[in-house]
Every structure is written in C-alpha cells, then in structure tokens.
C-alpha cells in the first residue's frame, strides 16, 4: 500500500527529504515507515522514538497504517 511521509525542520534537514511516498506491506505500522526512511545508506538517523502524527493527529510508532495515510515525523516543537 502507498502512504505519504512528511518530514519537517531538523528531521527534513537530517534526511535530506521533505515529502515522499512509501510502498509498505498491508499490515505496516508507523514504525515500519520510520525504519524505511532511515535505513537507506548515508542517511542520518532520527531519534528512536520521535513524535509522530497520522493524518494530522498525534499517534505512536505502533499505530497501524492504511493505504493513503499521511505519516509525519515531528521534531521537538518550538512554537510561540
């Protein structure tokens, strides 16, 4: 199934990508998306347990994914 991954701020800088699509197995969870984007050679790693959101709602690494989901890995927030 196809999902969209979005990276922001320091995480986008570390991995050198902002938005990308991933093709994951049907039973995939957020942790599989994280592994997929950080396992390519030459990529810097993200924290092991980053903040994540699925379809713009905070989620966890265990959250199951569905086709078309938008997964965001969220660096420490610093608004205000």
């Amino acid at each position, binding site marked *: 199934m196809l999902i969209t991954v979005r990276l*922001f*701020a320091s995480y986008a800088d570390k991995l050198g990508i902002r938005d990308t699509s991933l093709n994951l197995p049907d039973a995939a969870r957020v942790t599989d998306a994280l592994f997929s984007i950080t396992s390519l050679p030459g990529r810097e790693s993200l924290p092991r347990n980053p903040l994540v*959101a699925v379809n*713009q709602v*905070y989620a966890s690494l265990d959250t199951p994914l569905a086709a078309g989901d938008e997964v965001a890995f*969220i660096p420490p*927030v610093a*608004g205000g």
Partner: protein
Amino acid sequence: MRATIVTQTIDHDSLLREVTDERRGASALFLGTVRSINDGREVRAIEYSAYEDMAEREMMAVLREAESQFAGTRLVAEHRIGLLNVGDVSIAIAAAHEHRSPALDALRYAIDEIKTRAPIWKREHYVDGSEAWVDPSHAVTR
C-alpha cells in the same frame, strides 16, 4: 474561536476586537515576540515553519479545551511563520470573559499548551552568521 497560521504581521488589536463584546468586560492579550538573546547568543532573526494544517488543528483543539475549562471565555490565536526579526510578534492570543480570572487562566492554558503541542519549529539566525534549530527540550526556562 479561531486559530490561524499567518505569514503577515499580526494585528493583535483586531484579535482583541474579535473576542470582546458588551458582556465580556475582561480582555487579555498574550504576545510572543522574537527576542535578541537566547541561551547567551545574539539573535538576528528567527525563521518559523509549521506543519500548517495540523498546527491550526492542534491550536483549535487547545482553544476548544480552554473554552470548555473556563466556560464563557472566547479565544482567538494567530501564529506567524516565515522569517521574523527581533521584536516581531510571532504569536498572539486574545481571551475575553465576563470576569478577569477566567480570561487570564484561559490565556495561560492556551499559550502553554500551544507551545508544547502545535507542530511549529524555529531556526534561529545569529548575529555571527550561524543558524540552529531550537530544541526546547534542552532549554532550562519556559
């Protein structure tokens, strides 16, 4: 109730007008501005970015919680993104209630929660030409 990510100068007077009416005699305004020193370093500007749709959604959730906890309060919030210079307003939140305590308490709740939940980031540009992402989890003050 309204929460918006904006790219232009925040008109905080208009936020106050938006929440105030004849029944609400107490209005409170919080402004966050770019300061010139952070962690001992001279700051020239801050570049704000956001996961815009989610940031607005999360800010709205915070305002909804505040209006629920402090019944009768009306709130609006704007957060600016883009390159802001020292002294520019980055966030404005206005609250109004019949009495001052709920207005002030709701305002305090809103800014504290927005700062920790809204997916918004800042990269500081220092006077010496260097830049760094701000990670509040390493900060010693709020």
